[in-house]
């Protein structure tokens, strides 16, 4: 089953065309990786999936992006869209508040007031993000006191707290050490049971390790999209082969 269906998506930042005729399906409960050299459009595309590009001035998009069969660039509540499609960024960006409040922030803005209910959500989100054991005794401490890797898992917990369907991750481990990276990778693999995950990564081995499908982008075009095993062992396109083997990029 497809979570997202993209048809003929074109995107411009003023005169610059950042995405060209992107047509692809992103299956539910799988990890889809976007790879490609800097400036290829992969981050632009991932941001289009929850309309984060709306905030960029001069950004214009044509074509169709459907989430569960519903057009997301139509007349829909963008806040609700972003609740369903959460995002984790390259650098951990916890709010300057307590660990507890970081997680409770989203649910509160969506109207949950019950202390009991919030406690439940905080614990579940932290557990799902594999950081409960490290934080359960310091929930009232500042989130900024956590290590980089812990902060990133906290941000994942924060994204999970509003019970999204999809988790978008834009280079979520590029600022982390190898141990934190492998913790996030294990977590992502565990999460795909309940969530659809789209990840942008510059780390080829990471894409090969964790993703089910991989899309290779170049100069705004989707050059090749298929099973990760296939892309990394027998890519169909010479440009994909040249990029992943380090012959250009």
């Amino acid at each position, binding site marked *: 089953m497809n979570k997202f269906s993209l048809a003929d998506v074109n995107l411009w930042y003023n005169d610059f065309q950042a995405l060209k005729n992107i047509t692809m399906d992103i299956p539910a409960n799988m990890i889809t990786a976007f790879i490609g050299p800097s400036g290829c459009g992969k981050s632009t595309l991932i941001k289009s999936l929850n309309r984060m590009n709306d905030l960029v001035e001069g950004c214009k998009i044509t074509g169709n992006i459907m989430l569960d069969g519903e057009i997301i660039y139509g007349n829909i509540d963008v806040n609700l869209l972003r609740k369903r499609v959460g995002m984790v960024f390259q650098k951990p960006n916890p709010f300057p508040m307590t660990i507890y409040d970081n997680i409770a922030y989203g649910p509160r803005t969506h109207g949950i007031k019950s202390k009991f209910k919030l406690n439940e959500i905080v614990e579940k989100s932290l557990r799902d993000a594999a950081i409960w054991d490290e934080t359960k005794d310091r929930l009232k401490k500042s989130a900024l006191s956590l290590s980089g890797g812990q902060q990133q898992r906290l941000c994942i917990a924060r994204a999970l707290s509003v019970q999204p369907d999809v988790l978008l991750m834009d280079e979520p481990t590029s600022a982390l050490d190898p141990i934190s990276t492998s913790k996030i990778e294990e977590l992502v693999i565990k999460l795909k049971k309940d969530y659809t995950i789209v990840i942008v990564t510059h780390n080829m081995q990471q894409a*090969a390790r964790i993703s089910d499908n991989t899309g290779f982008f170049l100069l705004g075009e989707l050059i090749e999209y298929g099973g990760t095993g296939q892309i990394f*062992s*027998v*890519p169909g396109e010479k440009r994909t*082969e040249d990029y*992943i*083997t*380090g*012959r*250009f990029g």
Partner: protein
Amino acid sequence: MRSRFDEQLTKLNDMMVEMGALIEKTITLATQALKDQDVELAKKAIAFENDVDQMEKDIEALCMKLLLQQQPVAKDLRLISTALKMITDMERISDQAADISEIVIMMAGAPYIQEPEKIPQMATATVKMVTDSVDAFVKKDLQLAKNVIEYDDVVDGLFDEVKFRLIELMRADNANGEQCIDFLMIAKYFERIGDHACNIAEWVIYSITGKQVVKP
């Protein structure tokens, strides 16, 4: 951008060529020893086995290093995994050439009942298969690899001819039995060498195309 990796891959190619040349030499020596009933030559062929074993270990170590350091993907990954698989078959080929030489040494006491004419033909054919299969790897020559697989029929045909001839000899005189069985084993070893060359060619095809060869 990746010149060091390319240098290491060239080195891998060179080592594969060297190992190929070694096993070719081992088979040729064993064949000559068989023709001339030359025990010294047979011993020399057996001695080559250590060099081949060492070569296998060296190539294996280089491949492991490349997997670790370069984390290869796509055709690089296929090339290195192919090399790793190939050297197992190449080492088996050298074992079989040594086995042939050992039989030659055992048979040295008595003259041949009959010149084993088809067996040297098998030897020539298998040497060609081995050389071509390693060449196909080095030159990334798909057609050459396919030719090797087809050529196996020639070796199998020769084996059948040898076998029937030996059966006839055994029927003619029971006393021929022992030597006939020795010759049959030698022929079987050559036939197996052909099979190993086929395996190598199949891996080369995988390396080039990414598709596993489906065995009939």
